[in-house]
């Protein structure tokens, strides 16, 4: 299973290492650095690298690499999934996961890693349990600890791991019992230049924040459960109940968690909330290229569209852009050639528009095709 873990920052420093079995020299990371040099972007580094004696399985999160070293056969997805869980746990504990935060809380991080894996095999990965074993740091407690000399390791021993419901801690008490549910839906669509949808998919999540005392048993029913034909659940959800009744029945963990996520595939018809009317011409005629893009809402069911961002990766020959927007602001990074237009909210009465000229490198061959436009 997982032998060691190295956390590497973007500049290639191994700033934390943890070994669960005998120590493996950090020189093993050199293989990783070789691949890093070869790759054009951090995303292009293969997640699994085979070296003569070790296998490096890495994930890239928050501009850090988490490199797990294995020596024997193991399901790569197992390791990948675990590493992501580690990062999720850090984010859960420290609210964000950056190099400086990890360095700041190295003791907690180390303790967490120690609890999460035993001999390279996951031991406790439920955030509820971990939080009972190791209290997450916060300012109040830090001050209290300094004054009283107490530590953030809990002195009472947890019982959750020992119950049949490993994801919920026992003895939860709230004066206000409340439960919040967030529904997040992401639409991914590929639209061709004539504006017709090539494929569109929906990925949705239900995130919960449950603050209920005791052992609540909740059920959540949907008006139209038939839409969810491809779902995945938090382990607390009872599969059988869902299969027979399409009702989510569960004893929730305490605090924040993702109850379910669902996927609506490309077979179904998905309404896309915005449309883009574009005219982009990158010909070397006089002033260079022209660009004119208008955004508009589509099938919004009366809701406003907010936080619209438009990204255009420009071809290499583009030098700069002189554009005017009637809403939001745009930036163009001459190094990565990425044009980003932060539109914000779409007002139906005055559709956001960006237009202007693009200066091209003189003498470079005319660009063959227009770049793609990413809207998010």
């Amino acid at each position, binding site marked *: 299973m997982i032998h060691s873990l190295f956390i590497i920052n973007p500049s290639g420093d*191994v*700033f934390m*290492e943890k070994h669960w*079995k005998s120590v493996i020299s950090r020189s093993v990371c050199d293989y990783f650095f070789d691949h890093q040099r070869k790759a*054009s972007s951090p*995303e292009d580094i*293969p*997640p*699994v690298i085979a070296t003569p004696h070790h296998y490096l399985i890495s994930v890239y*999160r928050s501009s850090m690499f988490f490199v797990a070293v*294995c020596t024997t*056969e193991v*399901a*790569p*997805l*197992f390791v*990948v*999934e*675990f590493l*992501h869980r580690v990062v999720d746990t850090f984010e859960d504990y420290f609210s964000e996961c950056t190099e400086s935060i990890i*360095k*700041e809380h*190295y*003791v907690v*991080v180390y303790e967490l890693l*120690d609890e999460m894996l*035993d*001999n390279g*095999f996951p031991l406790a*990965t439920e955030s509820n349990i971990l939080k009972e074993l190791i209290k997450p740091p916060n300012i109040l407690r830090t001050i209290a600890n300094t004054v009283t000399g107490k*530590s953030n390791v809990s002195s009472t021993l947890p019982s959750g791991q*020992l119950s049949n419901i*490993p994801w919920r801690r026992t003895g939860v008490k709230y004066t206000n019992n409340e*439960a919040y549910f967030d529904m997040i839906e992401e639409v*991914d669509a590929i639209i061709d230049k004539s504006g017709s949808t*090539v*494929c569109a998919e929906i990925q949705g999540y239900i995130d919960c924040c449950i603050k209920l005392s005791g052992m609540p048993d*909740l059920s*959540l*029913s*949907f008006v*139209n459960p*038939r839409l969810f034909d*491809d779902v*995945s*659940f938090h*382990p607390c959800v009872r599969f*059988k109940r869902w299969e*027979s*009744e*399409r*009702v989510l*029945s569960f004893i929730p963990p305490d605090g924040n968690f993702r109850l379910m996520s669902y*996927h609506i*595939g*490309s077979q179904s018809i998905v309404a896309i909330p915005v449309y883009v009317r574009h005219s982009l011409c990158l010909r070397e005629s006089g002033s260079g290229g022209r660009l004119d893009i208008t955004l508009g809402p589509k099938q919004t069911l009366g809701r406003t569209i907010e936080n619209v961002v438009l990204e255009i990766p420009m071809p290499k020959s583009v030098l700069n852009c002189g554009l005017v927007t009637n809403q939001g602001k745009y930036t163009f990074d001459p190094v990565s050639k990425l044009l980003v237009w932060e539109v914000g909210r779409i007002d139906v009465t005055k559709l956001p528009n960006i237009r202007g000229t693009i200066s091209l490198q003189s003498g470079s*061959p005319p660009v*063959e095709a227009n*770049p793609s436009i*990413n809207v998010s």
Partner: protein
Amino acid sequence: MYAPGVNSSTTLSSSSSYNNDRPPSAEAVEVATDPASGGFFNSDYKKHDDLKQMLDSNKDNLKLEAMKRIIGMVAKGREASDLFPAVVKNVVSKNIEVKKLVYVYLVRYAEEQQDLALLSISTFQRALKDPNQLIRASALRVLSSIRVTMIVPIVMLAIKDAAADMSPYVRKTAAHAIPKLYSLDQDQKEELIQVLEKLLYDKTTLVVGSAVMAFEEVCPERIDLIHKNFRKLCSLLVDVDEWGQVVIINMLTRYARSQFTDPNLQDVDEDEESKRPFYEDENEVEEEQQEKRAPTLDPDHRLLLRSAKPLLQSRNAAVVLSVAQLYHHTAPRSEVHQVAKAMIRLLRSHREVQDIVLTSIAATATRRKVMFEPFLKSFFVRSSDATHIKLLKLEILTSLATESSVGIILRELQTYVAAHDPPFVAAAIQAIGRCASNIKEVTDTCLNGLVSLLSNKDQAVVAESVVVIKKLLQTQPSAHREIIIQMAKLVDSVTVPQARASILWLLGEYSERVPKIAPDVLRKMAKTFTSEEDIVKLQVMTLAVKLCLTNPKQTKLLCQYVLQLAKYDQNYDLRDRARFLRHIIFPADAESGGPTRLSKQAKKIFLAPKPAPVPESHFKDREQFQLGSLSHYINTKANGYQELPPFPLEAPDPKARDVETEPQVMEQAPLFTAKKVSSKKDSTFYSDTESPEDESEEDENSSDEDDDDDEEEEASSSDKDDDDNEDEESSGLEEKLPIKVVKSTAKPKSDEEEEEDESDEEDSSSESVSDSDSEDESSEPSSVPKKQVRNAKPAKESTPVAKPKSNLDLLLDLDDVSPAFTPIMTPSLGGFLTPMSTPSSQVKTQLFPDIQPASAVISPNTTSELLNKINSNGLEIKYRFTRSPHLYSPSMASAELTFHNHGPDELTDIRVGEKPTSGGVSIHDFAPIPSLSPGSSLMGTIGVDFADSTQPVNFEIKIGSDRTYPVALKVPVGEVIRAVAMSEELFLKQQGGLRGMNENTAKLSLTKPCTDLKSLTNKILTVANLGVIPNSDSSTLRFAAQTLSSKSTVLVSLLSSDNQNLTITVNCEKMVIGSMLITQLKACLAD
């Protein structure tokens, strides 16, 4: 405390290690930003001394501070071993955090400081006896993590103790310790296996995952240890933690491959199958296949697949993929595609997950095209994907291309060619080439497209196209003169060596088609020969030789010239080739004799027709590795990879898996003997998951009958042929379920059928055949080993009570349903039309957390008549209580209505007329039936809230516009209650609270003595919807239920003093219900 020698040696190593620490400048920078050894200590020469001092102090917070700094050093990977003696003595610290950090340090350095580490051992030994399970567990964890050979016996002992510990958590830790000890000392294997065997028998979900992990690490070859645990593992699988699930499924995949026969053995050839469009349900073919497939699947094999399936819904991608590989490697071919949807869902996860899943899909897609075809669009490339993801997607797209889908794929590929990512563009062009050569219909289109790319501005695009075209032309040797000419022209402009070489090769191969151009190109190339790349030079030589053979007049000299140039080339390959070619073509140069034998054959050698390259997916050869494994991903055998054995031809004895079960409350019906029926239905059932009809079928049917009932039914009819399905079925029922006449109106089912047969034509009986058929079908997916689970841990039973009742009614309210409407209808669709009794996202807390609703074990088959055909001029309505709660409201009992038109006329618009409104009684109508043709029958469901009384509910049935018939729905007392599950203690406690007036007792002597009290269970459960309470005492039987409306508890206990005499006690808040129930029970037990 320590020997002076030790001390001095450590200080020595301290200074030396410190010196070693210094030189690299990067280190110095790091030190400065390191909170662990802040500037002050850093500049201090004796920083470690300082730490030592802090560790020696009496104050916990100083110690803690010091430990934190030390851990900081460890985390950074800097040497801190010289502090070992100072740290190790703090292992006795009372402060938990200090202790924890000391443990962390100890595990890291114990290997290097073996002697000193021994000092800490006694502390752990003491902690192993601690009353707190967590302390015992963590002591074992650290003790086993100390890699010191000397303590092996101690660890061994500790593991043995811990494996028998009361606490499952400690046992889990013991399981973790086993591979640690094994890696430390391989000689302990035998002894460890013994411990492991014990742990594998464990029934706690917490332990089994880790036990299987240990098994995999220590003795994966001892597959015999699994036999007895196989069924348990399958039934616990869903509740094991996600990491354990992955390990267990992977292990069971291997197990299945060694223990079960190949389910696809007698199947049609793979290619044949993949060629047949999947969704075309040609019945004969399907049936033919089923016939072949049916007998092969072992019931345990089925159990494994069935228990793993719900895990496809796991949030953990690793679990999903491991289920996918289980299906890929062991499932019958018709079922494998079920995993596709879940795999597609994973594609929305993190980049790394995508990469690994796509690799698996790419490998699978080469063999199982149809599986992913419906999801083709999910593999379309997004501009935001990383390059390697894009390449994998392209690979999959090309593998999936078929005649029907190639159009849309090519359209996409065309767009990709315009992308800005060179490797991706190249791959896209290659993909076009692969599509072209795989699918003959589009070859010409693709070729034209590729040729048009030749005029692209981008060199790379042109070069790639040239290479691809070359391959394509090879597969299509028919005249493509134009293309060859166009490519010949490109020689002047293209600079990419690969492309140039390809063009030259093409010209040489097909020189007869362009007799004028080829020599000219050779002339040009000869001129530039010296400045070409090696690969091009080789092709120039080849071209020269080929031309020399076909057209010696024009080119012989040129050829000699080229060979001459090559002779003096820097590259030895080139020189070698030149020498070799020269001796074949111009043997006269060497000897003055005539042409040698070789040179006579030169034409045959060089111009032999060459087989066209078959563009194949490079994922094709990965089949040898287990899907989703590391070896599969890197396509080489990784260390410790366990080969997946081929299926045995003859299955090993399945009895090995039989476990002696304790006597159980229910007689254990042979759960999985129903293989024939179930596996047969399976394929049709799942083959169309997308279509709503099928889903509806599932829902409706599973709600029609209760699972357990089905199992029994299946069991009885399992070994018979389907042809005589009906007869077998009903007779089976009679044998199995003693049908009690509860009410005077009630008739056993078989009677009813007979009657139907008499009074009616063939039509109706065939209808009922199809009915019973569909029931079987439904039972298949849901007859999970529920009983086993229940017996294993009754407290955690999470079986839902509320089965969705078919919502025909609701659906029909809105829909124009054709008259050909059959019972097979209505899915979850009902859900959104259903008026909810509570707001749509309701959050309700259960009343009694300990009393879990349980599903009925038996659903009675007694049907009663609601409407007589004489009274109603032909319409007969029968009803049967299904014991599943009605979807509309849990307090409603649902009754299944069977409408049968015995009359000569078509009946239209059958619906519920006036309903009672008083007394808390309410009715949820069945769906109005638009029309019922003569001789046909239909099913409907009505929900009735009896308000906890057994008074018949009167309402009206209306037919058409003018006919109204009053009817009375009578309910036996056993149906106004619902089975619940509770623990024995709770039962006794509740019983204690329901004494006096609420208690009814009756004595009874049986006509024939019964040897086992449990055999009465069935009788009782047929009469009343009661839940069986697990029981330790064999002379008592206990049952529990709640009334439907008011949820008041009903407790029944049966006590036998000897085999003849019984005492029945019913405790119920509702005295009327209690007394009625006892009368009923007495009546049923008496006969």
